[in-house]
C-alpha cells in the first residue's frame, strides 16, 4: 500500500485539463438558470443520478467522471446518495413505465431550486426503445428538463462539457 501512496505524492496527477464547454449546451442553458439560484448555490452542485431504464451504458460513463482523469469534484460537482441532498438530477434511459413513478417521486423529493439534466439518446427521445409499450420515451415527457447531453452513451468528455457549461451559466 505504501508504494501506491508514495506514488500518489511523488507523481503528477493524472487529472486532465477541463474541456471547453459545448456552445450548444450553453445556448440551451442560457434561459434556465435564475439569478437567485446562482447566488444561493454558487458553483457547488450536488447531483443525484437516476437510471430510468437505461441499458447501464450511460451509468458506466457517468461513473468514469469520478476517476482520476476527469475528477468531477474539482468543478464543485459531486454525486450524492439521496435526492434530498441534490440540486441536480441526472436522468438516463427511455423512462420505462415501471420507473415513471419512481422518477416523479425522486423529482418531488428534490428540494427547490432544482434542475434536470437528461443524459443519453434514450433520455432525449427514447432512443432505440421509443416505440415500446413499456417506455414513456423522452425524460422531458415526465419531468422538466434543463439540459440534454446526447450520445449513446455520451463519453465522459462530452458529459464534462455539458456539466461545465451548466456550472458556468450559473456563476
Amino acid at each position, binding site marked *: 500500500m505504501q508504494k501506491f501512496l508514495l506514488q500518489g505524492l511523488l507523481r503528477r496527477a493524472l487529472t486532465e485539463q477541463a474541456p471547453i464547454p459545448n456552445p450548444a449546451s450553453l445556448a440551451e442553458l442560457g434561459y434556465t438558470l435564475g439569478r437567485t439560484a446562482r447566488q444561493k448555490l454558487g458553483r457547488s452542485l450536488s447531483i443525484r443520478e437516476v437510471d430510468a431504464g*437505461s441499458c447501464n451504458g450511460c451509468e458506466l460513463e457517468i461513473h468514469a467522471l469520478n476517476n482520476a*482523469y476527469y475528477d468531477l469534484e474539482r468543478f464543485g460537482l459531486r454525486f450524492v446518495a439521496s435526492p434530498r441532498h441534490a440540486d441536480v438530477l441526472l436522468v438516463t434511459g427511455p423512462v420505462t*413505465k415501471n*420507473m415513471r413513478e419512481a422518477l416523479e417521486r425522486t423529482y418531488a423529493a428534490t428540494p427547490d431550486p432544482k434542475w434536470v439534466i437528461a443524459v443519453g439518446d434514450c433520455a432525449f427521445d427514447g432512443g*432505440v426503445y421509443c416505440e415500446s409499450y413499456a*417506455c414513456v420515451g423522452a425524460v422531458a415527457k415526465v419531468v422538466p428538463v434543463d439540459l440534454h447531453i446526447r450520445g449513446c452513451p455520451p463519453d465522459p468528455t462530452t458529459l464534462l462539457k455539458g456539466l461545465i457549461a451548466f456550472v458556468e451559466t450559473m456563476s
Partner: protein
Amino acid sequence: MNFASKQKPAQPSPPTCLPWPREIVDRAGWLAFAESLAKGERELLSLWGESSNVHMAVLEEREPRLRIITLDCPKGSFPSVGRLHPPALRLERAIRDLYGLRAENAPDERPWLDHGRWGVRHPCNDPEKIDSASDSYAFLPAEGEPLHQIPVGPVHAGIIEPGHFRFSANGETVVRLEERFGFVHKGVDQLMAGASIERAARLAARVSGDSTVAYSLAFSQAIEAAFDVNVPPRATYLRALMAELERLANHFGDIGAICNDAAFALMHAQCSIVRERILREAANCFGHRLMMDRIAPGGVVVDLAQEKVTALFTLIEWIELMTPRLIALFGDTTSLQDRTVGTGVVSEALAKQYACGGYIGRASGRTFDARKAMGYAPYPQLTFEIGAATGGDVDARVWVRFDEIRASLRIVRQILDEAPEGPIIAAWALPEDWTREGAALVEGFRGDIFVWLRIRADGVVQRCHLRDPSWFQWPLLEAAIKDNIVADFPLCNKSFNCSYSGHDL
C-alpha cells in the same frame, strides 16, 4: 410451363435450428426434461415463450451439448418446470407476463416483470388492453417478533441500475432478502419482433451496456448459424479481442468498486485508472469506448490498424505490470480481507443447481465457461486457463476475477501476435428462401449469454430471445446474503454485479 419447378424448395417443418436442432416434445417429454433438471442430470440454460409454445434450452451434463426442446401449448398453459426445478420459476413468471402462457401448478404465480403499468397484459402475444394501475405485490413473509423490514430501491444510493430489495432483518442480521425487478423492462422482445436484422442488432447491443460486445457477438453468432455464414478468421480474432477488452475493463471496474464498498478507496482509484485506460484504447482502436455496434453478423465493422497493435501491446504490458501490484494491494490489506472473507457465501450445490455462470459460478466450484465448452472461434486456437475457486464468498469472487484478468491478458497477447490477415466481414445476403432459426451461447464477462432467434424468409426477425446470465445469478444473491449483516449487502451485491437491464429486458 411447369409452374412447380419455379417454386422455392419446401420449407423444412419445423424450421431447423442451427447449430443445435430444436426438438418437438409432448407433455410427457417436457416433464421428463423437467425431472432430469431436478435430478441434476441436465442444466437449465433458458426457458422462453412464443404465441402458442414454450421452448427450453438445456445443457447435457456428460458432454457439454446444448439441446433445445419445444412444447406446443394450444390451451395457453404448460407443465411447470419451476415446480420441480426452482431456477425456472422467474422465467416462467416472465413468460406469463409477456406471452400470457401459464405454468400449471407453479408454486409462485405472482407477476414478475409486469407491474401493471404498461396499459396491456401479455404485450407480446394477443395483447389485452387494461387500465394502467400499480399492481400490489405480496412479498414473501418472514415472521417473528424482533424482525423488521428494510425496503431499498428502486432508486439506489449509488450510480447503479434500479431494482427493489426487501430485507427482513433481525437486528443487523438479514433473515430474508427478496428481490423485485422489472423496473427497467423496456419491451425488447416485442421490439425485436418485426425488426430488420440491422435494427435487431442495435437492440441486442443495448440489452446490457456493460456487455455490449458479448451481446453483439452472441446475436451475430446466432444469425451466422441460422444462415450458415462463415466468419473470416481475422474477424473472429478481432471479436475475441473486443470481448477480452470488455472483460478486462469490467473486471477492473468491479474489483475497484467491491473494495470501495468495503471503504477501501485506494483500490477503487487505482482500478478506475486501469479501466479508463482500457476504454480509451478501445476508443482509439475501434472508435467507441464500450465498442458498441462494432460486431455485426458476418464479422466486424472496424479493422485494427497495425499502429494500433503497438498501442495495445503497450497497454497490455502496463496492465501486466499493474496487476500483481493490485493483487498485492488486495491480498495484503487485512482490513479488506476482514470484510470479504466468509461474506456472502454461495454453496457449490446452489451454483450447480442454478447452472450459475461466470465468476459467481466459478468461485463456487462450477467451472463452466462457454469459450471452452462451446469452443467458438478463435478460442480453441488460444491457450488460457479459466479461474476457479471453491470458497464461494466475496473474496473468492474477487480472486476468480483476478484469474480471469490474467487469462484475458494472455488471450489478448496471443491475439495481437497471431491474428491472421484478411477480410473482416463475410459478404452474405439473405437467401430469402424460408424461415430460419439459429442459436448461440457466448461467454460475456458476467457469464454465458444465450440467444435464440427465428428470421422470416423476408429477413425480418420473428422472435429473438436473449437470456442474460443474471437470470441464474440474482436468485443466488438472495441466498448469499442470508445470515450476513445488512451493511455487507452492497459488498455482496457488487461482488455479484448482476445486470438489471439484461434481466428485465
